[in-house]
């Protein structure tokens, strides 16, 4: 299925999700677990979207949206990854790999677009300085609304561009994909799980007794896995 037939709803989803990353309302529907599931749902397969979303969520654990730091745009990445994975049900060998690759490239490009938007907000702010210093309500409101509007447009543009590039590339790559699903998917999942584990360790190791909680958690998880 070509994703271009779902371009408008996906672009709208990308815009709304892109806005949530920083500007409004940071309710974390921009996390890949949400964005990818919704992206998959718009293509008719939310379950496939969720699988891509889980892998991306594991990878996103080590980049937290802390203030002035530059971080990838995981929201739009989730939409792209979920939609591409959902659109290629007949290619179990490479669909996950290709969708995650497209999502990671989008996350990287989306991060740069956020940086550009912040610079643009800064330029608008500098231009409004005399009015702001005079306590102009219009200047305060104008800056805020302009920033929000620009972020909404940014989300839609990044989504459309990513779909235009990666939908075609994914189809071409999947037609020639030669590796089996076990090897491909295991490789991706290993890196994703390793990244999330390292992130959890980094976030928690300074707190007393967390390693015992981690070991207990792993033991419980493995026990449930064996029982399943």
């Amino acid at each position: 299925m070509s994703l271009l037939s779902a371009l408008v709803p996906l672009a709208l989803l990308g815009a709304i999700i892109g806005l949530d990353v920083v500007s409004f309302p940071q309710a974390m529907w921009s996390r890949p677990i949400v964005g990818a599931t919704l992206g998959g749902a718009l293509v008719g397969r939310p379950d496939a979207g969720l699988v891509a979303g889980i892998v991306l969520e594991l990878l996103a654990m080590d980049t937290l949206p802390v203030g002035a730091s530059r971080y990838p745009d995981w929201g739009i990445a989730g939409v792209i990854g979920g939609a591409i994975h959902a659109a290629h049900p007949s290619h179990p060998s490479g669909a996950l790999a290709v969708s995650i690759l497209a999502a990671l490239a989008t996350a990287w490009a989306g991060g740069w677009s956020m940086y550009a938007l912040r610079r643009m907000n800064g330029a608008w702010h500098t231009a409004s300085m005399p009015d702001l210093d005079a306590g102009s309500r219009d200047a305060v409101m104008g800056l805020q609304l302009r920033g929000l509007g620009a972020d909404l447009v940014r989300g839609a543009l990044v989504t459309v561009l990513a779909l235009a590039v990666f939908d075609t590339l994914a189809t071409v790559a999947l037609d020639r994909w030669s590796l089996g699903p076990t090897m491909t998917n295991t490789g991706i999942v290993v890196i994703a799980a390793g990244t999330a584990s390292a992130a959890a360790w980094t976030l928690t190791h300074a707190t007393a007794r967390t390693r015992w909680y981690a070991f207990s958690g792993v033991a419980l998880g493995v026990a449930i896995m064996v029982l399943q």
Partner: protein
Amino acid sequence: MTAPAAMPLRIQLAVFTRLLAIQGSWNYETLVGNGIAFAMEPALRLLPEGRGGRPYREALARQSRYFNAHPYLAAVAVGALARAELDGVPAAQIERFRTALPGPLGSVGDRLVWAGWLPVSSFLALLAFGLGAGPWATVLLFLVLYNAGHIALRGWGLWVGWSRGMRVAPALGTPILRQGPQYIARAVSLFGGMAIPLAVARLLRPGRERLLQLSRTSSDPMFSGTVRDLVVPVALVAAVVVAIVLVRLHGRVAGWRIALGALVVLALFSVVA
């Protein structure tokens, strides 16, 4: 002039809604400064002479300058600074207070939310996925859980800021903010430890099922039951090795960048070979 003890409901709702968009014009020059003025503006209309009056314009100009805080805990600053403006606190004192606030509001918020509540919510959603939850159950669990904390924190921040005004600092020493991150860190460890193996097992199930199909039609030992049963344990051990390498690298390389590089190589190999 003294501000009313409780912020009028209409103003509260307007300020709270605007708090959700506090980072709408985030930039490297003033960070969240303009957002503070934007969120506080409905409350400043209560100043003498009302909207457009001299006190209103002076306060708005003061509050639109540089400010840094965690976006959720910026609610504390908005409440406290609005209260100070309405109480008629001298401008120089408000400026000093405004300069002192960002440090604690940033560090506490980052530890409590970005390094605590967000990973806990994510790991609980991953755990639900690993236990077999469907797409909507997984997504709803994450959104409801995360936003219960998110909305509560913003609401509490606005309330405590407004009710304490310039004396808000002791409220930031409340046990939830002081010890909460430690408890949440333990929850991250516990749920992360549980969720990762279960999520890995479910993610690799299609591959194992494919091996099961192949083992029925092929005599190749590569597709035997032993190999099939080893996929998840081998993946988990390999994930631990990747995690150790990443921890040793100590943040010099992000995991997602390694994944991007590895996938480019994998895709080229698979497509060209």
